[in-house]
Structure formats: C-alpha cells, structure tokens
C-alpha cells in the first residue's frame, strides 16, 4: 500500500515516546542524553517527512533538519562535558544523586 505521511509520523512518534521513556527511566546521565538524541531524531524525521509530503519543491524541512542535526551534535558535545563535570564533582553519573535542588 501506499506509504503516506502518517506512516512516517507514527514511526517518529514511536521514537519520540521511546526517547521520552528513556529520559524518564534511565539513571545514567549518558542514558538521558541518548534519550535526547532519540527525540531529536524523531523530530527531524518529522520535519523531513513533512517536507517530502507537504511542501512542494521546497527545502525548508530538510534545511531545518540539517540545522537540528548540527545543533544536536553541539549540544551533545556540551552535555557530555557537563556529564564529565558532574562525574568529577559527584564521582558518579547517577542523576538521582544530583538532587541538590531537592525541596
């Protein structure tokens, strides 16, 4: 059958929810980052899918997805740096241990 927009969107939704789940349940800081990557990926899939199916002859979706990828990479780099700092200060990357803001 014809692969439509909805198919891609559903896949992206699944990835999004999976990433969300990962962010919620993983205690390792890197695990949370991985979740973030998943979410970003699902977002870009969405963008590209929309670009393909809804935008005639335009590249907006792809360009945005490009920038997203760039920014995601930068952000991942920075986040890893933060994690390394956290590791240096707390001697662990367990985010549950990083609860100084606990009320």
């Amino acid at each position, binding site marked *: *059958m014809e*692969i439509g*927009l*909805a*198919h*891609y969107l*559903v*896949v992206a939704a699944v*990835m999004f*929810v*999976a*990433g*969300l*789940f*990962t962010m*919620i*349940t993983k*205690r390792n800081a*890197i*695990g949370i*980052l*991985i*979740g973030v*990557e*998943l979410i970003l*990926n699902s977002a*870009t*899939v969405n963008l*590209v*899918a*929309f670009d*393909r*199916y*809804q*935008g*005639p*002859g335009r*590249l907006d979706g*792809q*360009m945005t997805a*490009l*920038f997203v*990828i*760039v*920014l995601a*990479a930068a952000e*991942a*780099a*920075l986040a*890893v*740096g933060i*994690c*390394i*700092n*956290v*590791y240096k200060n707390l*001697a*662990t990357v*367990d985010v*549950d241990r990083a609860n100084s803001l606990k009320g």
Partner: protein
Amino acid sequence: MRLLALVGGVLLLYSRSAWAAEGAGATTKAVSGGLLETALFYFVAFAAVVSSLGVCVSRDIVRMAVWLFGALGSVAVMYFLLAANFLGAIQLIVYAGGTLILLVFGVMLTSKSPWVKFECPKVEFLLSGVICAILLACLCIVLTEATWAGTPQTVPGASVAAIGKSLLTQYVVPFEIAGVLLMIVMVGAAHLARQED
C-alpha cells in the same frame, strides 16, 4: 550490525540510481510505487521501532549506545526513502559517526566500572510506561486522523546543489549563527572539560 550495513549499502545503491535518473533529467515520476519501497519502509520502520525500544529497555549504557546506533541508522535509511539524500548522509556522518562516538566517549570517561548498573525503581518504570503509552496512543490517533494542509509533493526535488545554494542565500543567517554557536560550544566544552589543578 552487519545486516544493517548490508541494508544500508543496498539503499545507497538504489538511491544513487534514483539520483542518476534525476540528474539525467528524468521526469517527475513519483517515487512512490513499488512493493520494494513498501517493504523497505516497513522493514526500516520496524528496525527503527525495535531499536528505540531496545534503547528503552536495555540496562547497560553501552548496549543503549549500540541500539541508538541502530536507530540512527534506520533513520538515515528513512531519510533516503524520503529522498533526502544529503540529509541521510549527514545523519550517518554526523550523528552516527560523530555524536554517537562522543556519547561512547562520555560513557568511557564517566563509568567507574563497566559492571555498575543503575536501576530505575519498578514503580517509576511502570508509571512512566503507562503514561508514555497513553501519549503514544493519543499521538497516533491524532496523526492518523488528521488531515494535513498542503499538497503532497510529487517530485522529490532535493539536490545537494540546491541545499548548498539555499544555505548561502535563504538560510545564511542561521548558517552563520550556527557557526558562531559551534564556536561557543567548543569553547564551552573545552572549559567544562578542563583539568582542575
């Protein structure tokens, strides 16, 4: 891994052939038909979903990274299926080959011992699973029921040249800002990861 590489290679070949056809000034034939495309989509979609779920459920961080790699690869193939060739390549190069490696580096630098695992409490697991499932259901309902504005594109019209051109004309500002941002990130990351004396 090997399977994925194999699939990836096949896709690459196919897309190149598609480009070649386009570069030859082929007509705007919808690249929509074909059992191959459908099967391929379902295969890739399945892979993506499985990889994502694998990321969720795996307990070991390195395994998560591996599943992430699978997810990223599937997404790259999806890009190719969506006729976003450049983006697919960029995905593979930057994401899979850069970011993922970075994450693995991060894992290596921050693990006390490879056998230490942090477990999430079962309650949270269940609760978040329920909520996420509900969210997923809602999203799926919406996404499948919605009627989107705009017209479906019949011809995939993305070429590298076009992308490059728009980068320097339409998207020059984001381009420059992205450059600046990257510089800031570099500085920041370097500062963050400095050695404490």
